[in-house]
């Protein structure tokens, strides 16, 4: 599903350059639950951004579902963001002005889904995550764990093939973190969603079925 070949990423610093990723070769198959681990500054977030089409590699090839990413135009990428890719963030990044219901509904709006279908999808997700009672609340009225739940609900409502999660439990205490990770594992098993998460915690990484360790921009 995902293939990286000789991916490097560097930023210009003064006259030289600062290398973040060096010659990364990586394959992730459909249905995998991968955890990317490594110390701060090792390049794991950058790797995730490249995988999520948010950043361009400086060199190397990236095939997403068999297609070369650097050949894609903006429209195609937007299409992938609408359909194939979901994101979950450490800081949740919910839209403060929208209610829980509306936050979950937003990706469907961008897919131009008809209203009735949209309603039933959102209702399903709310039901499944047990947050029906909270649907009219705004994000700042929820606890961190609940916000992340909404964040995940929003990421999967569009039925993506892969979810990229950037330290999804970084802001949560351990009980909440466990619930979230159990949810990820369930999504991976039941819904066959490929999951790539960046994490510091060995406990969280254990929920996945593969661990990629990264240090100084290189996959070990």
């Amino acid at each position, binding site marked *: 599903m995902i293939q990286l070949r000789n991916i490097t990423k560097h930023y210009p610093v003064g006259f030289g350059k600062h290398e973040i990723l060096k010659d990364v070769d990586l394959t992730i198959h459909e249905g995998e639950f991968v955890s990317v681990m490594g110390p701060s500054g090792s390049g794991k977030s950058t790797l995730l951004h490249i995988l999520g089409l*948010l950043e361009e590699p400086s060199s190397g090839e990236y095939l997403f579902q068999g297609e070369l990413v650097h050949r894609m135009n903006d*429209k195609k990428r937007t299409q992938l963001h*609408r359909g194939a890719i979901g*994101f979950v963030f450490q800081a949740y*990044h919910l*839209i403060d002005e929208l209610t829980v219901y509306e936050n979950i509904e937003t990706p469907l709006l*961008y897919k131009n889904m008809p209203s009735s279908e949209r309603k039933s999808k959102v209702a399903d997700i709310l039901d499944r995550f047990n947050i029906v009672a909270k649907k009219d609340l705004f994000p700042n009225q929820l606890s961190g764990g609940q916000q992340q739940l909404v964040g995940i609900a929003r990421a999967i409502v*569009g039925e993506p093939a892969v979810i990229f999660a950037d330290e999804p439990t970084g802001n949560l205490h351990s009980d909440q973190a466990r619930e979230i990770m159990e949810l990820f594992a369930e999504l991976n098993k039941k819904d066959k969603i490929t999951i790539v998460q960046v994490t510091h915690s060995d406990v969280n990484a254990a929920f996945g079925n593969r661990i990629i360790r990264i240090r100084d921009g290189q996959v070990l």
Partner: protein
Amino acid sequence: MFRNYIKIAWRNIWKAKQVSFVNITGLAVAIAVALLLCLTVYREFTFDDFHEKKKDIYQVYMDEYYPERTSSKANMPYPLAPALEQEIPGIKAVTRYANDGTHVRVDDIMEDVSIRCVDSSFLQMFTFPAVRGQLQLGLNDVIITEETASHFFKEQDPVGKTMTLSRGDKWESYRVSAVLKDPPSNSSLDFDMLMRIEQWAYYAENHDEWENFSLATFVQLMPGVQPESFSANAKAFLDKHYAKKLHNMKNDGARPGKYGGLMHLGLIPLKEVHFSKISSLGNSNETMMFMMFFVAVFLLFIASTNFINLTVARAFTRAREVGMRKMMGAGKTQVALQFCGEALVLFFIALVLGALLAFILLPQYNALLNYELSFSILKEPKVLAGIAGAFLLVTLLAGGYPALLLARSGTLQILKGKISTGKNNYLRNSLIVVQFAFSSLLICCTLIAWQQVNYLRSKPLGFNTEEVVSVPLGNVQQSLQVVERMRMELAQRPGVISITSADNNFGRGRDGSTTVAKVGFRHKDRELESNWLNIGYDYVKTMDLQLTGGRDFNRNMGTDSSGLVINERMAAELGEKDIIGYRFRFDEGEREYHVLGVVKDFHFQSLHKRIEPIIMLMQGPPAYLFVKVRSGNLEASMKTVERAWNEIVPGAPFLGSFVNENTNRQYNRDRKLSQIFVAGAVLTIIISCMGLFAIAMLAIGQRTKEIGVRKVLGASVLGITTLISRDFLKLVGVAILIASPLAAWMMNEWLKEFAYRIGISWWIFAVAGLMAIVIAAITISFQSIRAALANPVKSLRTE
């Protein structure tokens, strides 16, 4: 989707209450004022638009190129119109148009009516449809408007009925042949009654006089005929009818004007008559309309600028939302659309509020500027389309820029809270500079206009303006006798010093009329021109004119009926050494006049004009009565004059006023202009400062951490306040530097309209600049002092 946008827009507007308040209030006020101003401009520019043949109708004017001056006039001699129709090809119809007015009686109803004397073709040329009767104007017919009909005939059908008009000393009967719809309020041609030009009081003696210029004359050209071809054909026409005059002009050294002749007959398109400086029907000022339009555009621009600045500044706080949306698959257009939608909602609220405000302000506005504007103009589809178009344009421009900015930036960057709004806020800064440049421009204009109007009001005019009552005699019969009886009646009263009369007023009285009478004559091989004023006894004494030689008219001297009192300018033009007692004739073989006295130059016309020569003599009936009263109780003296008037001419309205009221009225237009400046300046400053206030708030919000760190390191409150204010005040300084020369140039152009004017001094710009800086500094200090006083622990905790 759309509902979702509107919902978010609404919540965002609600969430940032302060910023939204600034945006909406500023825009609403700007829209209200712009709406009023634009409606005014629209009304003025659609004057006389209702005539179906407006494209082919023109008013005739004449230029004469004398060696030292060019005289332009739109009043034509009596025989010109019929001669034009016969001798110049391409003319379909011609009409003359003369002002008249008299008492009209029907049974026991008597009223003053304003009459226009026209040729019968008038009704075919102009579009004044008949409600009853036929559009035919016979020699003994009158045509009246619906309003006049309802005054005199109530519900009856007036067609065929008789109306009795006071003509000279007798009453004459006329038959009503038709009733017209009332002329619309945007018509230059306004009347209660039409009658044939042949019935005009002065027609008989002047109908073949080519040197009496007094009738507005309109021509309708054949479709497709150009006014240029008319002027070309008119050359031979002028050569034929003014052979002698042209010969004299040539001998005096006159040179052909820009059209290649010493005289030129031109055409003013009907659409431009309203703005014409030559035509006596032109009473609007194009420059002022453009000023109004510019002020409207300025205001909208400044309010939109606030909107752009605030939206861009707030984009920082909204960056995360946009980033998230893009990550969820929102396209550029969708993001842009969303932000445009927000702008649309906000602008729409402002539009509704603004329209409401304009509606509430309309009566006061009309009263202030003496306009008859009504909101019924809004029913016209063209106006509605214009407003909708302007609304969408402003929304698109003001909403589109921030939208584009956000939609364009990289997803990851905005998600991390980094948005590039251009290096060092160039756009924001230049918009602030432009705002304050407008503000200081208008402050300068206000100061200068105010100084000039004040100067006009306080400049000594060379005659008594404060203690003289001027009473228009109107249509009173036997006015000379009325003046004499007033003289006898008032002579006894304490408080009255002296009484006189004249056939022209000073400035503009409560009767609203003003006339210019001039005489042109040859004197020692030079063509001279002078104003011509018929006065009564004691004129010099009553008006406090200063004799520099000779004497005023005297009742005891029989030969004074051929005497003249002239001003110094006229004396200089005549160029005689012994001017007192100098004898000359205006026309060969006519009566000889002699100069009785010379008075010091005085401003009998407005200060727009230099003092011209004037000849005063005692001939013809008076039109105005002047009473000089003792200073002290002026109000009581006015009452005395009014009582005497009501005794002597019962029934006639008393329209007396002090002369200084009349002379001040001449500058109404200038005062209006300065009022527009003042209002415009105040509004632009308020709206600009509202924007600055909000911008300062947002800018400080972004520097919270810096301010906190500085305070921890020991910066004082004053130090921090200056630190923040300095950046903004620098911009205001740049704005002043840009605005000052512009203001100097603009106001110099305006002052050129006045023959007597103030000089523009440098301190005006210093004062204006200081005002702008102080106002801006106060505005910013609200925010900056609060930021400086805040506990640094709090501001640092947010990081």
